[in-house]
């Protein structure tokens, strides 16, 4: 094809200026429409989501380039040259493809400036998402080139933006079913919406969804290229074949509901540990916080060693809903839970110590009320049993740290009140009795014995 000709096209066509504009618009929207992204996955998915905007722009850029021949009136001269049309359009198509990929990657690079933790977990599942996004832009550019060559009016490019945007923005809401979400066929559209509950860190798009989308996008790109290379009406009609074939194969291959396309990412919740003492382990998706955690971890362990021997020697931090059911932690491990969208680094070291020491370093028991205290219904307060359980754990933590329980946030007033009462009751006892009761709570939590923990602390039912 000629590297020199490709170089000429890259320099002189609209490819590079269009790439710049699309990347700039994309970066602007990435920054302006969301607060800083908590994970790489969120950034990658949002970049796909804004393809509602960038895909029509790429289509228009292709169309703008595609009308060049007619606008420059070079058609007559080119008609007398020897090279057949498929070979002739190859350099400009390649240049636009390069521009599309560059625009997508530059957009991603710019968007990393809005990432909260650039050194955080980069899931392998993000790579196909990025690749398919770039492929979708290439398909847009090629389709645009073909349409521009067929309809060389100065209005073609802006009209394509409007029409494409109309299609991308209006069609999905029409297809959405309130309960079950979008049908899987929505994957036919180049942009992607994230998982419904927003748990970006924990999920990746399934391989099936990725593959079917890849097949479809390749078909669209092939159609665009074939339409561009077609010289006669018959070949133009034949050029529509790939897209029809692609739809016929890809649509049945796609998952029924879009929600089903998002699957758990096992690697995200895998535990990674520090190498030096004391060993601190955390889910991979929070691995950026490992360094900051060692201080609070050490403090928590030393507090436990001082006040409640025998103390654990390592700290593990896991996330709610990570799907691992490992049972109760061994005696040498302090296990605490954080919620997936918790920004661990935003918490102060004191906060972290408090989380670790809640319940004397043992996680809540699943069989007891209050096991998943993550979400409080606003305006209401917890049921009593739950409040008592959480209050007992809170009081244990406060006793270890020798401070008052934290002031109540909305819905937690009952917890705090009960915790304060328990704490006062505890402080009234001699030191070794206090230690014994807290130890009893810890043992009960470790084995998940049934019973009211608050009573354990305040001594209303069988103390030692």
């Amino acid at each position: 094809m000629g590297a020199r000709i490709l170089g000429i096209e890259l320099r002189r066509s609209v490819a590079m200026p269009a790439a710049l504009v699309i990347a700039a618009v994309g970066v602007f929207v990435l920054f302006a429409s969301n607060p800083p992204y908590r994970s790489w996955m969120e950034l990658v998915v949002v970049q796909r989501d804004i393809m509602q905007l960038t895909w029509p722009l790429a289509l228009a850029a292709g169309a703008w380039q595609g009308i060049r021949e007619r606008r420059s009136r070079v058609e007559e001269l080119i008609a007398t040259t020897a090279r057949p049309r498929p070979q002739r359009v190859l350099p400009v198509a390649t240049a636009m493809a390069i521009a599309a990929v560059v625009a997508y990657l530059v957009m991603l690079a710019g968007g990393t400036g809005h990432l909260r933790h650039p050194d955080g977990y980069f899931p392998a599942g993000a790579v196909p998402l990025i690749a398919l996004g770039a492929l979708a832009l290439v398909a847009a550019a090629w389709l645009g080139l073909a349409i521009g060559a067929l309809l060389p009016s100065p209005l073609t490019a802006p009209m394509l933006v409007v029409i494409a945007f109309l299609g991308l923005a209006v069609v999905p809401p029409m297809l959405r079913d309130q309960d079950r979400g979008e049908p899987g066929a929505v994957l036919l559209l180049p942009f992607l919406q994230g998982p419904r509950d927003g748990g970006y860190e924990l999920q990746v798009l399934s391989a099936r969804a990725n593959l079917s989308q890849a097949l479809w996008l390749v078909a669209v790109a092939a159609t665009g290229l074939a339409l561009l290379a077609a010289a006669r009406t018959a070949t133009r009609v034949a050029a529509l074949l790939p897209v029809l074939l692609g739809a016929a194969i890809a649509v049945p291959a796609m998952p029924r509901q879009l929600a089903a396309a998002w699957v758990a990412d096992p690697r995200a919740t895998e535990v990674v540990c520090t190498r030096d003492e004391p060993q601190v382990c955390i889910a991979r998706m929070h691995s950026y916080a490992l360094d900051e955690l060692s201080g609070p971890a050490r403090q928590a362990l030393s507090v436990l060693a001082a006040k409640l021997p025998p103390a654990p020697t390592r700290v593990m931090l896991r996330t709610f809903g990570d799907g691992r059911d490992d049972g109760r932690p061994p005696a040498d491990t302090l296990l605490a839970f954080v919620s997936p969208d918790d920004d661990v680094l935003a918490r102060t070291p004191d906060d972290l110590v408090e989380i670790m020491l809640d319940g004397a370093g043992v996680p809540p028991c699943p069989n007891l009320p209050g096991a998943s205290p993550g979400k409080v219904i606003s305006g209401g307060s917890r049921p009593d049993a739950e409040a008592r359980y959480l209050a007992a754990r809170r009081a244990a933590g406060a006793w270890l740290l020798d401070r008052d329980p934290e002031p109540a946030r909305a819905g937690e007033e009952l917890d705090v009140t009960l915790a304060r009462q328990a704490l006062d009751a505890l402080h009234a006892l001699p030191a070794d009795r206090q230690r014994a009761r807290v130890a009893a709570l810890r043992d009960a939590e470790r084995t998940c014995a049934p019973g009211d923990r608050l009573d354990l602390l305040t001594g209303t039912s069988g103390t030692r």
Partner: protein
Amino acid sequence: MVRAVSAAETAATSYAWAIHAQALRVRAGRRMAVDGLDLSMDTGVHGLLGPNGAGKTTLVRSIATVLRPAGGTLTLLGEKVNGRIDLRGLRRQIGYLPQEFGYYRRFTVREFVEYIAWLKEMPAAETPGAVQRAIERVGLADRADDRMKTLSGGMVRRAGIAQAIVNDPRILLLDEPTAGLDPDQRLQFRALLRELGVDTCVLVCTHLVEDVAAACTDVTLIDAGRLVFQGLPTDLAAAASSDVGADTGAADSAAERGYSAILRRHRERES
């Protein structure tokens, strides 16, 4: 400077004429612009004259393989054009400068000529040298790396000539090549034409009879799609001596007066 010749060319040619048309008919829109034309041209510089609407541009476009003949036969370099699907081999050996020369404004002169050379399937190794040669021959060497939108009208025309000659074509078709050239450039262009005419069949379609008289080895005059006159430029001027017309004055050149005379006589004969 002689153009580079390939082995195939130095072998004895199997055809008599580079351009040979017999009863050629070509449609332009709804009109039959070329209507029963017989033409034979070989190496040399051939001038094509005729009034507006005579079918000159249509003839040139059909030789350039832009238009397909509607009737008769057109044989280029020994190959018949009618009904041929694959004109690639032929198009590699043709150079064409259209009357309305469209170009990519953003490209530099060198890039544009190189692009056309690539479109004519010139071997990649030869292209840079050929491009440089072509640009130098038309006198644009100092503007070779300027964008085409910064060139004046005459320079654009010269760039058009450069793209036509870049592949050393066997048939060179130039439609109004001197439009916009200043007198000095026109003299240089005539010298270029004479140089090219040594081993190429050049067809120059123009209204400037002086260019034809000065540079061409023979002149063809067509009117209403038919051949009116074919002969030497001196014959054209000779036809003026027998003409006493009210429209002409002493300052009009002999060639122009001869052209007028021949045309008038032809029209009188036809009606």
